[in-house]
């Protein structure tokens, strides 16, 4: 197996929002690399900085957000330093964003085909697309996302929710980008349609041999799609590694509790949330941002911020339990976790 080429490297990226109460650091020293054809999932709850990170990578941040340090290296060049004129040519061709609620971002008074053609024409020179080929390329873009070419003549309101979402994906990927950043591409879609859209994204990724960064809050959805995942908490990557390793043996307590809080279809188990609340990024506690909610936290966690360290060859975690431990120890008995037993009748039957 030949090693894949690296297409994206994010190095120590920091993004701040300027507010009247001071700067809010939404992305705080995130680093990772993506190989050609790799599917990476980025999991985080609301306020964890996942959308800011995705937007920063495609350089679409708007004030009051600004990148304060770090690099986004696309094919060897720092994407953040590219002059604006070049940037317009690189975006969509190299890096494409499928934004959150993309289906609502369609222009209601333009036919789907015209909206796809728009991007193609804007890049006609640099991508060497002759005018006469545009129509054919529009059909190709629709085919990539599994939509029939006659939908090019429709207006957005004539399509169903799933079709609109796929049309938005066709616009984003019409120039066959090498990197696709998909920010919650299925939020607000029903579970069946969600599955279709995820399959479309999977086929698209395979067809283009593109690297995909899938951003989401749904652990089930992201782990079904991705090969590797990163877990974001308070703007920091707290765990990173191959999906199977992380699901089997999560190394960071937050990842572990997040996995435990997922309701399963196999057994009825007590519902278990994560105690406490995500921290306010405006005044982060000193030390590890997860410490106030962490059942494993000890003194060091409250003063010193842990850095991401390798636990195994492929898995990394930012936690002071390592390198003293190799695995997460069993949950401490004193853990103040809200627990509620499953409905009494079932539990009793099982015991009797």
């Amino acid at each position, binding site marked *: 197996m030949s090693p894949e080429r690296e297409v994206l490297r994010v190095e120590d990226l920091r993004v701040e929002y300027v507010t009247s109460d001071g700067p809010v650091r939404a992305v705080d020293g995130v680093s990772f690399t993506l190989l050609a054809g790799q599917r990476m999932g980025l999991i985080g709850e609301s306020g964890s900085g996942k959308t800011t990170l995705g937007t920063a990578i495609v350089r679409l941040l708007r004030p009051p957000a600004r990148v304060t340090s770090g690099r986004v290296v696309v094919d060897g060049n720092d994407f953040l330093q590219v002059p604006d004129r070049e940037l317009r040519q690189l975006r969509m061709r190299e890096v494409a964003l499928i934004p959150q609620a993309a289906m609502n971002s369609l222009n209601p008074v333009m036919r789907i085909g015209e909206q796809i053609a728009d991007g193609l024409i804007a890049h006609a020179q640099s991508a060497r697309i002759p005018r006469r080929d545009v129509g054919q390329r529009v059909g190709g873009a629709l085919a990539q996302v599994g939509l029939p070419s006659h939908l090019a003549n429709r207006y957005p309101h004539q399509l169903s929710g799933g079709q609109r979402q796929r049309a938005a994906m066709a616009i984003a990927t019409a120039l066959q980008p090498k990197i696709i950043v998909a920010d919650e591409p299925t939020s607000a879609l*029903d579970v069946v349609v*969600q599955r279709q859209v995820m399959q479309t994204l999977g086929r698209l990724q395979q067809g283009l041999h593109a690297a995909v960064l899938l951003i989401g809050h749904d652990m089930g959805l992201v782990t079904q799609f991705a090969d590797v995942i990163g877990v974001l908490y308070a703007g920091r990557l707290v765990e990173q590694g191959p999906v199977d390793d992380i699901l089997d043996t999560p190394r960071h307590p937050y990842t572990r509790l997040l996995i435990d809080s997922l309701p399963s279809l196999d057994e009825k188990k007590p519902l278990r949330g994560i105690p406490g609340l995500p921290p306010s990024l405006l005044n982060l506690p000193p030390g590890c941002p997860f410490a106030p909610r962490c059942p494993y936290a000890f003194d060091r966690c409250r003063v010193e911020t842990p850095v991401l360290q390798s636990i195994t060859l492929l898995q990394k975690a930012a936690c002071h339990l390592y390198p003293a431990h190799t695995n997460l120890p069993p949950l401490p008995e004193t853990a103040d976790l809200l627990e509620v037993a499953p409905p009494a009748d079932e539990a009793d039957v099982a015991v009797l």
Partner: protein
Amino acid sequence: MTALLEVRNASKIYGGGLFKRHDRTVALDHLSYSIPEANPSITAIAGESGSGKTTLALLMMGFLGPTSGQVFYRGRDVATMSVAQRRLFRREVQPIFQDPYDAFNPFYRVDHVLETPLKRFGLAHSKTDARRQIEEALERVGLRPKETLGRFPHQLSGGQRQRIGVARALLCQPRIIVADEPVSMVDASLRATILASLQVLNRDLGISIIYITHDLTTAYQICANIVVLYLGNVVEAGTVDRVIRTPKHPYTQLLVSSIPVADRSRRRGEDMPGEGEAAARPVAARVGCAFAPRCPSAMDMCYESPPPLFVPDAHRAAACFLHKDAPVVSTVDVASIWEKGAA
């Protein structure tokens, strides 16, 4: 067995009007469902958007009247009940709304939303009594009164606000709580605590809970029974163990197989049965089974007449001709499907 709340043969049709007969949309199609006085349980009403689940919830709470059929509370028709009866109905059947960000008036402290029902229904005899009740309710849903009271909604997280919504419902001393997608807008790490507080209300206070959702995994975890709706019709109903573990209706099977689970050994296949989406059809166009156009097992008969609810095994019924050799459900009340089986 007397019913506390009964929806009898109710239909709800939106749109239409005098000149637009063909634009009518059937949101709910002759549905009968009752919540018994005894044995309070948690029941899920599940389905995709457009399935009629929210319409059913609104009918149950009296926020909407049925186009045909009736809704009874304690034996009285909600449409014609007296002022005093309606007051009791309004107090004893409480909603929990989907969006914790929209349900609060940002100008009032959260105390306001908790005090109002006590005042409105005269449930507290003094200020200290009101305060005690509020603190008790907050603790029941896992909130510390000291850290909650006196705050404005924007100072609380979505999860906390949603639990205040639960506490508010609780202060009315309800018999039934109708929760419409209570956790769909809340973060994963906080969902469990809200669902757990619903379980506490059911188990410790004997409140029946209707849990409206599209999420079958949480339904499986907290509910005893489930009703699956598709375009206003019941397609499958029964105990969650039957319906979610071994679904018999092709639509329920599609829903269950579409759930993304954090288990890579069960990667969902690339084949996609039932391509296409639910589209509420005009009344006249629907002759047979509403799901037939998307159904992988559709037969000729599916397009000829709507399937009745068959009972392929105890505690469950499915409206599908695949099970036509099984007996047909004997009563129209959906709740009797699991009640009967229990006997």
